[in-house]
């Protein structure tokens, strides 16, 4: 029995999970909203532990990932590429690629059946097409974040959007609204633009067939998933199928917890061998 906790500190939210070997016991997600991520990590850790009546000393390994290098009470830190890959395979054993869209970054990771990273590609420098970007747009349109996906699915004439700056999106959206374009068409246009960026990332990794698992905060956006599926067809990458998972947002934290257990067991083996 090895209890491990995985903590994934993103730029938008802190995700925490509790595992007993390969068994998932508890989960927490907390939006940061200008609070201190380190305190939220502590809070998440205490909550998942207390939910299963475990003391701090019962936890064999506390693994952080994402921007969690500086969590004081952690046992070790894992790179987010490896944790998302591992978490992706845990959620969907068929997954051969993980597409993760966080609040600020997007990335595509090409993996094998054991969750080993074969190659990856990440957006950088620009927040266009990120989670924060979509959230800004939703705010200007007066749409709740949960409504984005379903609304986008009803679009008949998606408005073509070239990649737009996350900050200038406000005026772009005002312009579209003033031209009389319906909200679903704006949202769908944005989803298509985001999807085409993600497909480009996927292409660079070299993957040609298998299941692509969407992870991160936007994984539950059915509009984005649909746009991604359509974009794969348009780009004639028919070997890939895009899918999501209800717990996709925890992928990084899950991976961290699993890698934590692996490292813990390795260390124990090593110590046993030295002792013997």
């Amino acid at each position, binding site marked *: 029995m090895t209890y491990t906790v995985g903590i994934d500190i993103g730029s938008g939210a802190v995700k925490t999970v509790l595992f007993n070997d390969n068994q998932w016991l508890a989960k927490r997600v907390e939006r940061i909203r200008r609070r201190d991520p380190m305190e939220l990590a502590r809070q998440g850790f205490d909550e998942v532990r207390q939910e299963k009546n475990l003391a701090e000393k019962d936890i064999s390994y506390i693994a952080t990932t994402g921007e969690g290098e500086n969590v004081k009470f952690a046992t070790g830190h894992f790179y987010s590429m490896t944790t998302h890959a591992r978490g992706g395979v845990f959620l969907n054993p068929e997954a051969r690629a993980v597409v993760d869209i966080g609040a600020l970054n997007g990335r595509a990771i090409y993996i094998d059946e054991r969750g080993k990273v074969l190659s990856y590609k990440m957006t950088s420098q620009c927040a266009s097409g990120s989670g924060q970007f979509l959230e800004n747009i939703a705010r200007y349109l007066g749409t709740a974040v949960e409504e984005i996906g379903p609304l986008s699915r009803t679009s008949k004439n998606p408005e073509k959007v070239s990649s737009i*700056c996350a900050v*200038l999106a406000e*005026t772009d959206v005002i312009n579209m609204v*003033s031209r009389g374009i319906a909200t679903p068409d704006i949202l769908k246009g944005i989803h298509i633009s985001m999807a085409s960026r993600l497909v480009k990332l996927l292409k660079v990794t070299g993957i040609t067939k298998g299941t692509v698992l969407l992870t991160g905060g936007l994984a539950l956006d059915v509009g984005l998933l649909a746009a991604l599926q359509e974009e794969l067809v348009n780009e004639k990458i028919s070997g890939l199928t895009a899918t999501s998972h209800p717990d996709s947002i925890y992928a990084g934290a899950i991976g961290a917890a699993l890698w934590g257990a692996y490292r813990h067991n390795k260390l124990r083996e090593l110590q046993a061998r030295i002792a013997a």
Partner: protein
Amino acid sequence: MKCFIGIDLGSTTTKAVVMDERRTVLGRGITNSRSNYDTAAAIAKQEALLAARFVLFRKELEKGRALNGGLEAFIGQLERDFRLEQYLEQLADLAQVCERNVKFGDASSAVSAALRTLFTELQGQAAALFAPGARRKSDFFRDIAGAQYLALGERVAKDAGVRYDQLLNVFDRSIIEVENRVYDASIKTHLLAALERTYRALPDTLRHKERISAPIQAVLDTEMAEAYVVGTGYGRARLPFSKEHIRSEILCHGLGAHVMYPNTATVLDIGGQDTKAIQIDQQGIVESFQMNDRCAAGCGRYLGYIADEMNMGLHELGPLAMKATKNVRINSTCTVFAGAELRDRLALGEKREDIMAGLHRAIILRAMSILARSGGIRNEFTFTGGVAKNEAAVKSLTGLVRDNYGEMTLNINPDSIYTGALGAATFAWRAVMEEGRSIEHKEKVAA
């Protein structure tokens, strides 16, 4: 008299400049662009023409000498009285629209009653807003009326037993309709009513009533004929003009800077949504340009976003950055990432003023690279746009220019926000005076 008008339809504000036959700038007008470009263009033009009338009043009254020594006070009072008249009309309009927008079922009659109380109070306070020395944060009706409405609404709602957010809801639904109305017809009546108010406020001037009113009436009766209009800016494609009347903002900015400073060779414009570096020749004609487009990093919006992140006003950033004692390097390009970096650095204990100075430097560094791509900086160098008002940005720019290009004459005009409109007005003047064109409207072209 013949007027030549330039309109610069920006993403945040719309500017207009009116020029006479001798190319003297008579008036400037500005309004917020809203979501309706036609209205914004009409109102900016109306404001500029109005400012032009005031310039003419002053000139005529000076000639008549009826107000020896009291001219400035009189004109100032007249202007405030005029704004008051205008405000009262819009307020009455808003009251009506609000009344129509009350749709809360059973609560409606209570909300309506609260609205009537609120508007009576708003009307009562109007005069104080335009009293001598009264400070207003903005001259746009939406901002003035909005601030008052919010301030008084809370108490009125409580007294009347209605929900504050119901009052806010009515305001939000009504203000767009009111601010999109052009009160063109009432300018003259407002001016005459304002004149009466001014006589009451300055009773000494009544002795010369005839000698004051006559020239003002004469100016009012002078038709300010639009000889030619040229539109430019972000929204120029949506102006109701034929394409003969539209110039690119690069051309207008280049020419505008040349008109302000005839020795200008390089122009840097940092506006709300884009940054332009323009090289012009001695006639103000564009030789080359570079711009950063559709990315907030490096334009004014970058500072706006940072101000929001810091919960500060945009105008407070510059002064704060001026207090910096240390160089902080901002590594992020993207505005959103810079916002995240700002929070990280604050968490690491860096001082706010030092980070602010770093952010100002970052935006100017972006501008420097755009300038370099456009062909570098040549003497004289003119800096325009909203960011030219920010002292910390100017300080960064001055230092970087000196380090990279040596000593230069840096021109910054307090009216630099009108540069594009000034260029457009100059194009309008040239079209008529040098090319002999006359105005043509889109409708006419279509027919």
